[in-house]
């Protein structure tokens, strides 16, 4: 019986270990869009550019659209540093003292869309934040006007 060479076993172990080390909460880097949003049918309510708060430069623009009564927050273009447990908050002020959670950040780069849940008065919401929830750290925010 031919034995598997030690080198192959070792290499397989290293590859397997590295594959298992992929962080569960890492944010994907590919562009992410949802099927429900159609820009041709939506009207822009307000928008604003992202500014860095911590952990490296974030660039891009946050838009708020209305499509048949449903409100969408669209990040396009968008580039953000990666981090654990990144969430998108839609808030009334700079400190996110009252916010709506739009969900997990779908991607660290490229166009992405988020439905605003419930029926909030979007006029009261002036900021979009990228927030590392697990460590309570704000990465960036965009003031939308």
């Amino acid at each position, binding site marked *: 019986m031919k034995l598997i060479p030690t080198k192959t076993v070792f290499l397989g172990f290293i590859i397997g270990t590295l594959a298992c080390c992929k962080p569960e909460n890492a944010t994907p880097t590919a562009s992410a869009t949802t099927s429900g949003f159609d820009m041709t049918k939506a009207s822009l309510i307000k928008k604003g550019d992202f500014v860095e708060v911590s952990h490296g430069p974030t660039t891009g623009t946050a838009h708020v659209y209305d499509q048949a009564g449903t409100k969408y927050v669209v990040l396009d273009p968008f580039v953000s540093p990666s981090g654990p447990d990144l969430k998108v908050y839609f808030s009334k002020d700079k*400190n996110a003292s009252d916010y709506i959670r739009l969900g997990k950040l779908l991607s660290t780069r490229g166009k992405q869309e988020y439905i605003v849940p419930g029926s909030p008065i979007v006029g009261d919401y002036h900021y979009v934040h990228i927030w590392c929830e697990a460590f309570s750290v704000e990465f960036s925010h965009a003031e939308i006007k």
Partner: protein
Amino acid sequence: MKMKFYCLVLICSSNVCGVYSQSTKKKSDDFVNATVAVAKHQGTFALAYVHRWRFGVHKKFGVGLGGRFTSYIGANQHYETAPAQLTSGGTGPSVIFKETITANIDTFLVKSPQVNSLNVSINIDYRLSKKITAGFNIDAIGFSFGGSRNGNYINGPSGKMTDAKPTAFNILLISDNDRGSLNSEFYANYSLNEKWGLKAGAQFLFTEYTTATEVQQFPSANNRFRNKSLLFCAGVSYQL
């Protein structure tokens, strides 16, 4: 000369043993201990004084009363809705048998919690051998203090960033009826000599924050949030 030295050592050690066995038969004694406890992203330091009364023919059973200062520090800790009325749908002793109502539990995430508490504590122990004692202690009543912290109140799709302070008044009741920050330990103490001992065990700690406003509104208004931590603890004890 050598013989004399051995005799001297023998006499001294027999005297120490004599004193030691005498101390284990005392009706009451006093001791202090210093304990550190750690778990993932959190830790405590505690100083305690206990006056203990010994019971039984061989004075193996001890009940003590004392005071304990506990200082807790953590990072990114989740505090959950505290009042028994919300967690168990009622108050009173029966809450211990009730399931937690998960729909009523909201989270308050505190980035850098730091709570200090000073409580009257109860200690119960049993001397398993001359060297080893197993025991349990729990805080009963006292107060907490610490700086204000900003936290993230999370309630499904919505949330608020708000300030909070450690709940000032602590009292041990039953299960979720408890209020404030309370420490408890299951431990074993190994006596190195008549005075000094080493202890190790498990620490179960409640810390509680009260938010500046009643951020939780459903099913009723609430501003108290509790963290339950299980930590490994080790320390030293000193017989007074």
